[in-house]
């Protein structure tokens, strides 16, 4: 039995560690994708005032604090049974859309993108943002930087801070925006739309234009027929901030939609003793292990899932791309994981359009951005779509609004099972006869990098990178080769 350890997976936010066991033939017998840490937010948030949850859970993840800030704020609203005034909701979603643009940009150009732009087997040292800049030219570097800057500027204007926003409180926000800020935000939004279109074009040129990549995408290596979930509005169109969660079966049929208050009827988590992270699955279907298909409760929650789970996009340009997407990939649902990258760019376009839509709403500058809660605080659930998947915060409080219990099902966690499956499948198809090289390893990594997993979020654990180490043992368990790669 040979053993390979990939530790950690790189260019994702947080931890991950893969154990690959080879059999006598040097083929993959099994893989274990382990999350080595747990932070215990569910425990140490107990005792804190509920209005602090949007500030504390921010720190679950500094990459998508906005998502936690929003989910927490919505949960805290629910705890106080208070419905924020419309302007507050508009502002929150505006902040959130701007954040989406930044986050998807970061992932596509800095984290996931390099695999495509540089090519999966490009030298390690070039497979990064700087490599992308060098290849595509400084112009794109400048644009990426500009996009991220705009996104964070809007987050700061509404959220008070660039990272870890602070303005959402039970009942709304602590501040609104002025007309001149609104104008700024609008012009940035319009630029964002252009940038999104530019990115889709780049993707079309570099990836869709490259047969090798298309085959890679369409190939079986990265395909799983699982369930998909994603939030939709009342017209069943993709929405990131509010709505019901739509659940779609591998055959594309809609299993149903659940409101935040119903999530416990739909989602359950399965523990394994070899990892700190739990495996969510569809309660109605049940946990059948790391398998796909109609009978396995394993589901995915990613940009691709959201597209699969919805009937379309709420904005015109994105809707057009949406249709092109399914035409190109042969109808709904799309099961190929690498298509997530494309779906992400479509969401980028949607977010940018939504951004402009919201900022041009006449109510956006209204001073009516907070409703003082009057009800006794009890229990509340908040759900938003984090870029990496459906994010659920559930709090219980005492009558003073002090948290007594917490449950969190975080973006990436949803995808723990499918990611594990993708890794196994990729490893099985790529590692033969104990033949391993970094290119292959990276293609294994690509299997999950597509999910843009954020195990900082997932484990609510203290993320932090660990060295990637591949130990290869022969059948006698002697170490014949050691490969170490940092991050």
């Amino acid at each position, binding site marked *: 039995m040979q053993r390979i*350890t990939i*530790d950690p997976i790189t260019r994702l936010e947080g931890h991950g560690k893969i154990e690959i066991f080879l059999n006598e033939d040097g083929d993959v017998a099994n893989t274990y994708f382990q999350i*080595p840490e747990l932070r215990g937010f569910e425990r140490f948030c107990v*005792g804190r005032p509920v209005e602090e949850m949007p500030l504390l859970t921010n720190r679950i993840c500094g990459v998508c604090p906005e998502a936690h800030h929003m989910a927490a704020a919505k949960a805290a609203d629910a705890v106080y049974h208070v419905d924020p005034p419309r302007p507050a909701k508009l502002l929150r979603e505006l902040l959130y859309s701007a954040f989406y643009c930044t986050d998807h940009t970061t992932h596509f150009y800095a984290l996931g993108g390099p695999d495509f732009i540089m090519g999966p087997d490009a030298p390690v040292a070039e497979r990064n943002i700087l490599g992308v800049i060098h290849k595509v030219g400084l112009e794109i570097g400048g644009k990426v930087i500009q996009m991220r800057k705009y996104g964070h500027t809007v987050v700061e204007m509404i959220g008070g801070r660039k990272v870890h926003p602070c303005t959402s409180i039970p009942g709304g926000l602590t501040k609104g925006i002025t007309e001149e800020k609104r104008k700024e935000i609008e012009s940035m939004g319009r630029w964002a739309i252009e940038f999104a279109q530019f990115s889709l074009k780049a993707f079309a040129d570099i990836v869709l234009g490259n047969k090798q990549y298309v085959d890679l995408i369409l190939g079986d290596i990265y395909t799983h027929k699982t369930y998909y979930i994603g939030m939709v509005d009342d017209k069943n169109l993709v929405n990131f901030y509010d709505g019901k969660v739509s659940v779609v079966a591998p055959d594309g049929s809609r299993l149903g939609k659940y409101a935040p208050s119903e999530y416990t009827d739909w989602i359950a988590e399965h523990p394994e003793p070899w990892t700190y992270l739990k495996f969510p699955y569809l309660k109605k279907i049940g946990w059948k292990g790391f398998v796909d298909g109609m009978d396995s409760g394993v589901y995915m929650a990613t940009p691709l899932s959201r597209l699969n789970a919805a009937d379309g996009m709420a904005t015109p340009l994105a809707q057009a791309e949406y249709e092109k997407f399914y035409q190109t990939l042969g109808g709904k649902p799309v099961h190929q994981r690498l298509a997530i990258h494309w779906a992400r760019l479509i969401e980028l376009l949607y977010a940018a359009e939504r951004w402009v839509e919201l900022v041009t709403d006449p109510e956006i500058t209204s001073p009516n951005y907070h409703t003082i809660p009057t009800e006794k605080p009890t229990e509340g659930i908040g759900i938003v779509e984090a870029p990496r998947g459906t994010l659920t915060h559930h709090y219980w409080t005492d009558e003073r609004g002090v948290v007594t219990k917490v449950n969190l099902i975080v973006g990436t966690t949803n995808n723990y099972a499918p990611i594990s499956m993708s890794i196994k499948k990729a490893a099985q198809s790529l590692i033969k006869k104990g033949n391993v090289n970094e290119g292959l390893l990276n293609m294994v990594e690509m299997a999950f990098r597509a999910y843009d997993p954020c195990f900082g979020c997932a484990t609510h654990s203290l993320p932090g990178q*660990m*060295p990637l*180490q591949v130990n290869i043992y022969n059948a006698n368990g002697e170490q014949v080769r050691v490969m170490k790669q940092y991050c």
Partner: protein
Amino acid sequence: MTNANFEPVIIGFTCNWCSYRAADMAGTARMKYAPNVRLIRLMCSGRLDPTFIFKALSGGADGVLISGCHPGDCHYIDQNYKALRRFHLTRRVLIQMGMEPGRLKLLWASASEGAIFAAEINKFVEEIRQLGPLNWKIPGELTDIPTQKSQVEVPA
């Protein structure tokens, strides 16, 4: 160690004008009390910074005594009320931190109350003895905390 032969160490913060003089008076009157308290003189109980309390507790003390002039008798008019307020809040913090509230004691003692001062110290020492050692101190270097070595080894 069992409480019986456990000798607590208590840090006592005294005000220069009342409680410290009460201690002096207990001395001149040769009143006997337990040798477990180490008094630290402040000009006024109002000088008491909770930092001192935490320093004492995390530095090896088993209990902390705060003493000052009786309400209304402060030599700096009403600074002992500030000590009173800090005492109440600090106690709340320490309770939340899992400490037995009995380890923090507030005692008003005038310069003439040597007997009361001595008696209260004896009482306090006994109470702490019953509570046992505090040990709010991470032994040695933090890095000495035994942890399972992770599998990722760096060859020397």
